[in-house]
């Protein structure tokens, strides 16, 4: 199938093991970075997601053979990624556009309005 003949696979074995070790190292780095407990939320998120993206790229690219697939799969995935990004970004942007200080938790002792029962 596509680029995977018997010999190709044998050559790739070292690569797969290498990716595996890289993933383990990535996990260790993520947890270690977490122990620093940054005060800044932005830094925490950036560091965590950056390493996660690298790990994801390794799994998708090598374990899932994406590096050797042709246009068709890329087209499907790029379309998906675009819509996924749209869903995330637009939803959060809409939240961001709400009046300052809007939260969904009202805080202690929300006032009970004096309405009658139905």
């Amino acid at each position, binding site marked *: *199938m*596509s680029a*995977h003949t*018997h010999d190709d*696979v*044998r050559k*790739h*074995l070292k690569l*797969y*093991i290498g*990716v*595996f070790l890289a*993933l*383990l190292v990535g*996990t260790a780095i*993520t*947890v270690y970075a*977490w122990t620093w*407990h*940054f*005060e800044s939320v932005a830094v*925490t*998120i950036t560091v*965590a*997601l950056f*390493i*996660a993206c690298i*790990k*994801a790229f390794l*799994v*998708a690219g090598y*374990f*899932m053979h994406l590096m050797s*697939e*042709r246009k*068709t*799969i890329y087209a*499907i*995935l790029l*379309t*998906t*990624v675009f*819509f*996924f990004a749209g*869903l*995330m970004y637009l*939803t*959060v942007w809409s*939240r*961001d556009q709400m009046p300052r200080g*809007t*939260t*969904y*938790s009202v*805080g*202690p*002792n929300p006032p009970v309005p004096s309405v009658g029962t139905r």
Partner: protein
Amino acid sequence: MEIPYTVQPRADTGLFNAKVGIWLFLASEVMLFGALFSSYILLRVGANSWPHGLLNVPIGTFNTAVLISSSITMVLAWANMKMGNPGLSRIYLGITVLCGFAFLGVKTKEYYDKFVHYEVRLVDGTVTDGHIKERSGDFAIRGFKAEKGSLVLEPLNVLHANPGESMADAMARLPAKERYAHHHEKEMTIEASQIRWISNYTPKHSPYFAIYFTLTGLHALHVFGGMIVLSYLFFQNRLAFARTQTERYTNRLEVGGLFWHFVDLVWIFLFPVLYLL
């Protein structure tokens, strides 16, 4: 006439049918988990405060390592089948399934730990969380209130807060490093009348646990589904079908493996987002 390209790839796409099918399915799964992740973001951004330190990071790290290992064994199972070593392939496939079992077992223990962990907010504003060592015979929880009786709590944290605030609200005022420290305070005996709000860590406790259980629960269901498929392939390895139609069987390993790697991919994002952020 047979359906073409079930085993041999089509020239212009370079793919056999099932591979197109599984990638399309994975695309829809990206949208499914994406919707849950965007819900997570929305809920967290809209929350007064978000709990920290409630999930066990060493256990989560262990589970991450388990899934990563299962991914490499899956690749090796497929690679060995391609290289003509069905026996070795079967062993790797078996290890993959066992890793799945280990992951789910650890997850079950994690869930159980949450179900026996209670957060208690007292009328005077004290918030505390921990395990219930013993409870009086007439003690019962209805909704988020305790009707009568008393309980003895082994608290992990005891914080002072304004009446009506949650543990997360109180913790939010602490510096970042303090939030992850687990103390072990001395036992407290609490009467039902002192309790303003009590709940164990279940989905109804807060949006934090609601989204945690939903995301990890859906992921665990996918792990379970993947394990069923891989177990089926494990047993199929020994059958005549795998010996005579080797290429078709190898394709099934590849397609099943793609799903399994996706499950691993989701966890690669789930772990930092839920446990570390």
